[in-house]
């Protein structure tokens, strides 16, 4: 049942928490900036693609763990979300292989 509250107690902001949020934001901005630098300094190669994917996973980690708070949830919840993503890894492997096979067939 919802109750009518007349006086709401506003808790003052915790400076430490705000600083943590800003730190994650700065990391995300920096990683994006590094990606930009790589895009214009390194030539196209497998190593460059690997770097891009690694930096993307770094960003994804900070967004999911800190912004979405998953890093501070119960382990059972973390695993319920992360383990099913194994199917994505499987799909990447199988479809990239399929792409190569199509190329062989067409060209």
């Amino acid at each position, binding site marked *: 049942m*919802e*109750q*009518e*509250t007349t006086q*709401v*107690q*506003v*808790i*003052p*902001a915790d400076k430490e*928490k*705000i600083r943590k*949020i*800003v730190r994650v*934001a700065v990391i*995300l*901005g920096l990683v*994006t900036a590094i*990606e*930009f630098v790589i*895009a*214009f300094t390194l*030539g*196209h190669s497998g190593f460059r*693609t690997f770097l*891009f*994917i690694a*930096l*993307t996973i770094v*960003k*994804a980690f900070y*967004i*999911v763990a800190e*912004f*979405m708070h998953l890093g501070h*949830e*119960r382990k*059972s*919840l973390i695993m*319920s*979300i992360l383990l*099913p*993503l194994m*199917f*994505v890894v499987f*799909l*990447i492997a199988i*479809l*990239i292989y*399929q*792409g*190569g096979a*199509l*190329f062989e067939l*067409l*060209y």
Partner: protein
Amino acid sequence: MSNTLAVEQSTQSPWRGGVAPMKASYGKLMMWFFLLSDAFTFSALLITYGMIRYSHPAYEGVIADFTFSQEYWPIPEKVFDAVPFLHGVHLPLVFVGIMTFILILSSVTMVLAVEAGHRMDRKAVEKWMLWTIVGGLTFLGCQAWEWTHFINGTGGGGASLTWNEYGPSNFAALFFFITGFHGFHVFSGVVINFIIFYQTVVGILEKRGHYEMVEKVGLYWHFVDLVWVFVFTFFYLV
């Protein structure tokens, strides 16, 4: 207090309700599972991009001599090199970089809204939700400009679902599909954010005693940002 709680827990079966095994409310849990299914959809789209790209020849020559051709897959930085108000200037990936920063910033304001909600600070929730909505609308505006530029082209005929001046027909089709599906998520995110902003302003959430709805839409909004991080890498950088 803690003793009675322990006794209650030991006699009550976990299947009889009233306990949250994952220490997350039903609504938050369901949002997580929805986002997991949405992650599968976006993965399928992006991996399809990878498959189709690998089934086309890649450009082999020097990057500086690159010209658009139907014979090979285009290099993204040669396609996306325009910025509004700077017509004819070659600024590869600058505009899409700005869009990325806008979305990351709106994600930060969303975290601040959630944080303010934990403190029952209605004024701060209103302020940060509004900034998040502004960020989302700015991103949508940028995307509208980018699509217009992509469709009209630079004098080579532009792009449609069946043909485009940049490369094989699948290139533009995948561009429309992937950025369009993401843009639709941003659009629905802005609408949902606005509903929660409205509920905050009229005091519905304060009366309820908690701002969990802000947390739930926050999860969705961060997910939209997360997807863009991947789209940015696999469509524009690689």
